[in-house]
């Protein structure tokens, strides 16, 4: 069984000896799978911390006059909740975590292009995370995750620490972006042309340039804010000649691509899960792949739709409004393609499939309110209100976080060799679905009726819906607790899953789980799309005993 790799003896055949010792294998490992799992563990720990902050917010809003925490503490809590969720939870989980574990396996590589760089990128992340959370000790940032000057210039020392921590996370994101682009460009298995690459890798390919380019724009803005706060260099302070609107331009030039960084890999996850459990090819493979790239490209041209009310020249508002509408078209194509994939399938409702279908429904609602916000006249009414909070929680929690849950239930067997408990999973899904909708649906009309964002007290007439939202948020929090119980319980006594519990056809399901440290004994050649259910697998050169193992989807639960 000689290696048929095209370039014999090249990087495809270079297998470094297995790392020895606990530290080298599990702490300072350069194996992309271990690094990915490290990202996931750290990301989920920060999810618990930032989630508790969210519950402090909801408890404060139980009463119209607040009273749970003082207004200053409340400002710190919601600013840290936003910053931690964006930079310490969603981006690391979805790019560093699943991107590292799954992408190299799916393209048939032994590791990412720069393993050492990958390890360094990871180890920057928990350090910067601790640095960000320790700003609570010296007065955490108060001006939200957007930290608009001049308010962020007057805030306590924690804001400088915030800027430094986010700068570090930016370095980690940029290096991960470079790593993934080079890996996907040059280390695909022989025969895997661009149009034979799985859709999760297409999503990572659309996200990696955003990670690499947009993050450095934020690094410049943060450096300028840090220099201004520490040395008085007048970039943003209007009384010294700077301009606060300049910060908004530089911040949102990063932050809108950042929201696409957060959701595109979730699109990729859903495009893998739905066809696998509908037991039929994804509908419109090329359309979904190219719409990911279209969204990533257009993502750079719409940043000022966050600034319609903050002094953007009126004639400038039109192009940003219209390009934001245009982004809705490729997103719509994706949603219609997933729905069409469900048609005519043999659908198995595992927990990850439930989350995937839930994602499609909730993301559609989030996308529609996004179009509302893009229309300037309506945005002038609801900018800075709870309508915006409802919109971005629908696309971030209902979108990316549900994508992360779907991915965890789907790839847990590949990472650990054990299945997660399905009944606990279904409880998690339904409680999460009910709690999530109860929390964020009422916030739409709360915002339109006149409840501004980031306020510790509000008008007593909104008391009922805020209580409804807070109680539902406790239900959602309880469901996430079930998720963590499920993960920890299944690690030890989940059912053995074998190499391919779901009958997946992408390369990562054709190797043992957990995979050997070198992934593929010999790199297979690929000669077809991975989504032709019913046809023989389009790979040659795989370890023989795996390819003909009977695929018993549904026999496990």
């Amino acid at each position, binding site marked *: 069984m000689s290696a048929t790799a095209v370039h014999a003896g090249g990087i495809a055949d270079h297998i470094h000896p297995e790392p020895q010792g606990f530290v080298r294998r599990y702490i300072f490992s350069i194996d992309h799978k271990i690094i990915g799992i490290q990202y996931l563990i750290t990301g989920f720990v920060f999810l618990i911390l930032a989630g508790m902050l969210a519950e402090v917010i909801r408890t404060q809003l139980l009463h119209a006059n607040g009273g749970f925490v003082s207004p200053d503490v409340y400002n710190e809590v919601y600013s840290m909740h936003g910053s931690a969720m964006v930079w310490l939870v969603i981006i690391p989980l979805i790019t560093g975590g699943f991107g590292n574990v799954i992408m190299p396996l799916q393209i048939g590589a032994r590791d990412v292009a720069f393993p050492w760089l990958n390890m360094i990128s990871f180890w920057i992340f928990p350090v910067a995370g601790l640095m960000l959370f320790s700003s609570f000790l010296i007065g955490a940032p108060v001006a939200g995750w957007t930290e608009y000057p001049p308010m962020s210039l007057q805030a306590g020392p924690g804001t400088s620490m915030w800027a430094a921590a986010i700068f570090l996370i930016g370095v980690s994101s940029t290096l991960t972006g470079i790593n993934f682009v080079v890996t996907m460009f040059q280390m695909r298995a022989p025969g895997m042309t661009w149009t034979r690459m799985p859709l999760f890798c297409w999503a990572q390919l659309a996200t990696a340039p955003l990670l*690499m380019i947009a993050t450095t724009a934020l690094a410049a803005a943060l450096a300028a804010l840090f220099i201004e706060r520490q040395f008085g260099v007048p970039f943003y302070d209007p009384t010294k000649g700077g301009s606060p609107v300049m910060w908004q331009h530089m911040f949102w030039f990063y932050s809108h691509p950042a929201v696409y960084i957060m959701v595109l890999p979730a699109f990729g996850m859903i495009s893998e899960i739905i066809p696998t459990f509908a037991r039929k090819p994804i509908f419109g493979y090329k359309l979904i792949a190219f719409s990911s790239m279209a969204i990533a490209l257009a993502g750079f041209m719409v940043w000022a739709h966050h600034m319609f009310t903050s002094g953007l020249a009126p004639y400038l508002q039109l192009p940003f409004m219209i390009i934001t509408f245009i982004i809705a078209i490729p997103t719509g194509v994706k949603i219609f393609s997933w729905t069409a994939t469900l048609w005519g399938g043999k659908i198995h409702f595992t927990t990850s499939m439930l989350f995937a279908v839930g994602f499609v429904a909730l993301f559609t609602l989030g996308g529609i309110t996004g179009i509302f916000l893009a229309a300037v006249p309506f945005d002038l009414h609801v900018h800075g209100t709870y309508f915006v909070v409802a919109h971005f929680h629908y696309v971030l929690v209902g979108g990316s976080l549900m994508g992360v849950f779907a991915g965890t239930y789907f790839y847990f067997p590949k990472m650990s060799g054990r299945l997660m408990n399905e009944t606990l999973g279904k409880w998690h899904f339904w409680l999460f679905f009910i709690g999530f909708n109860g929390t964020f649906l009422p916030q739409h009309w709360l915002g339109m009726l006149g409840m501004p964002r980031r306020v510790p007290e509000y008008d007593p007439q909104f008391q009922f819906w805020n209580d409804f939202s807070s109680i539902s948020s406790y239900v959602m929090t309880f469901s996430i607790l079930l998720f963590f119980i499920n993960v920890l319980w299944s690690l030890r006594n989940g059912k053995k899953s074998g190499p391919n519990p779901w009958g997946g056809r992408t390369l990562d399901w054709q190797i043992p789980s957990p995979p050997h440290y070198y992934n593929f004994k010999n790199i297979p050649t690929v000669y077809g799309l991975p989504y032709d259910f019913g046809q023989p697998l389009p790979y040659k050169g795989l370890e023989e005993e795996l390819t003909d193992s009977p695929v018993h989807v549904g026999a496990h639960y």
Partner: protein
Amino acid sequence: MAVASLPHGSSAGHDGVDQLYADTRALRLQGMLLFLVSDCILFSSFIFAYLYMRNSGQGWPPAGISRLDVAFASVNSVVLFGSGATMHYALENWKHNNFGRYALFMLATIVLGIGFLSGQAYEYTNLIFKEHVTWAGSGIFGASFFTLTGMHGFHVSVGVLYLIILFLQSVHGVYTKDKYFGLTAGTLYWHFVDVIWVVLFSIFYLI
């Protein structure tokens, strides 16, 4: 977990350079280029801030700050662009394997780089102490000028350090006629720093 029979390791592939080096060189080259792209975005973000402030209504230069000394800056720029040319010839000579001329041009590049840095230091002292244009005290002009040229100066000093290390490595025989990616990366970085100065020189001194 004994590993089953390992496929044959990296053998000396065809065309003299072994296949593993050829593959990893392609990876490292693309990685270096992407790093330069992301660094370029860092500069363009600050350049956006500078240009954004320039046309936001206030006259330029802001009252109280006189024009910069173009004559001295053009000499400084010629020094840096000269070092770009000598860097190019250093790599050319290394490829044609005459180490003597390579060493000459490499040292010339390092000297010119240090010359540019001292020219920049002279201009800073002149601006700060004689004309009282300081980093924090003279509005957005001081902020943008000193931050951008300072960051570029930092990149040049890292570049000079990088070239010195490369030169010592080449003297110690780390690089051979076929395997010299370190030198290529150094040249790419140095040219990148030159190109950024072309932009900075024109937007600060010439418009």
